[in-house]
């Protein structure tokens, strides 16, 4: 499995390199979480991406689109080779995910603070309908600067959306602008059940994402490393939005063999 994830990271780096575009480090920050979600947690069928009985996943921090594309392709929602069309004029895989174009993408995101309350609305709709499907979203820590995230947090707790889980990709990249402090305490104060995990430890991720029942939404504060797996990229702001040049590419790929 670890080698599979490294191979997927290589594909993501190559896709970014071809296009000269992409938030690779943001994608690597959440790739372990996505892997566990799509291999062990979410009920979904690549052959029926609109199956009403599916679980929903919303990537609220849409700029990490290379991560969700990588997982969706690896799971068979579309061919892996399509990753190499990333951000091309004729392709459907953009710098932010588009639910109108990409099978398996539930919401078009990009404007931070939109996806989380949209996911809450999906959870509310499923609850009204009496569905057993659940909704999971990932927000970034920088995204938690947005007031709409906390509006969504208020609403999810008030409307007892026990079918809703919000994972915070807490890689601390936003600290240089605004310190968020103890996010568990903040979500708890908003009425959520909270847990803090190592966002790269698959056993911890899986345990935190296990169905929990009840009517309280769950926040998972995932300690993550931006750019995880590539030493010079890890927690390096220079790599926030940067594609590797030819001379950087081989060195990055070599670290992932």
């Amino acid at each position, binding site marked *: 499995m670890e080698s599979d994830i490294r191979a997927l990271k290589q594909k993501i780096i190559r896709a970014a390199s071809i296009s000269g575009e992409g938030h690779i480090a943001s994608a690597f920050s959440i790739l372990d979480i996505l892997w566990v979600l799509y291999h062990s947690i979410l009920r979904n069928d690549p052959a029926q991406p609109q199956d009403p009985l599916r679980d929903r996943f919303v990537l609220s921090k849409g700029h990490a689109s290379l991560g969700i594309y990588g997982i969706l392709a690896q799971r068979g929602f579309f061919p892996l080779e399509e990753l190499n069309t990333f951000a091309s004029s004729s392709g459907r895989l953009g710098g932010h995910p588009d639910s109108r174009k990409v099978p398996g993408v539930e919401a078009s995101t990009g404007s931070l603070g939109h996806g989380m309350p949209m996911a809450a*609305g999906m959870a509310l709709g499923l609850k009204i309908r009496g569905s057993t499907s659940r909704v999971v979203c990932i927000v970034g820590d920088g995204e938690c600067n947005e007031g709409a995230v906390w509006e969504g947090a208020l609403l999810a707790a008030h409307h007892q959306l026990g079918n809703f889980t919000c994972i915070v990709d807490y890689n601390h990249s936003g600290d240089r602008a605004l310190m968020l402090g103890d996010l568990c305490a903040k979500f708890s104060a908003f009425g959520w059940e909270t847990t803090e995990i190592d966002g790269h430890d698959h056993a911890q991720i899986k345990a935190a994402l296990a169905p929990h029942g009840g009517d309280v939404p769950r926040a998972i504060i995932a300690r993550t490393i931006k750019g995880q797996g590539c030493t010079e990229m890890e927690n390096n702001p220079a790599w926030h939005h940067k594609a590797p040049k030819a001379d950087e590419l081989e060195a990055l790929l070599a670290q992932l063999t």
Partner: protein
Amino acid sequence: MRKQFVTTTERLLDEDERVVVLLGDIGVFAFRNAFKKHPQRIINIGILEQATVSVAAGLAKEGFIPLFHSIAPFVVERAFEQIKVDFGYQSLGGNFVSVGGSYDYAALGCSHHCPGDVSLMQAVPGVEIIVPGHPAELDALMSQTYASGHPTYYRLSERSNRSAQSVTFGKAEVIRSGNGPTVVTVGPFLDRVVEALEGKDATILYYTTITPFDAATLQQHAGDGRILCVEPFYEGTLAASVTQALRGKRIALSSMGVPRQFLTSYGNADYHDRSCGLLAPDIRARFEELCHV
């Protein structure tokens, strides 16, 4: 018109299980019967418009038809990016019903004035904009469009025309036809336009659907190209639609509406009509000016 909004919405809640109403902590008492009857599908969501519009988009994704109701600046201006991206770009259907357009809440000051709502909503491709001039028109137009699959903006006015027109979504009504300039007016301004043009040789076109704009009716009744727009929102809001409808034709366009400046005084809507020069004598004077072009 607000009473009719409640009546129509209650009927839609009864008839269509897909309808979910989100109130921005206004109109809650008026909807008390609906809260009893449909506790799961009418929610006093609170005062958090940005998340409300995103939540509404999530509901739309799950097959519901959301209806969000609040005061115009908070529906449109506060949550504009959510309307643009979550509804507009994602091609989701939903209903946005505002009160307090332009200076209906004059005494509450600039934060509650909203003459720019229609201009803003026009900037989102796919949005439908409806400005009824009478409660019966609101009922007809909501019934026709609430499930259109588009984001639809309904601008409710505190003041209504004395009688309703037989209105159809997307169609302008020809109130009267003449040989002089053509006057294009909207929703609650119809009565004053009719009064202003008494005895004048004019064509009066009445629009309750602003977007999509009924270009065909204007093309058929544009006469010699002298057009006066009398608008209950920012002046010039209709100009792009009118000039696009009449492209290639020589036109003289004159627009009357709320001036593009902050209104710093309070009072009531009638006061602002006077101070903005939007009463019948003002309209008649502008029409006569156009007659000499």
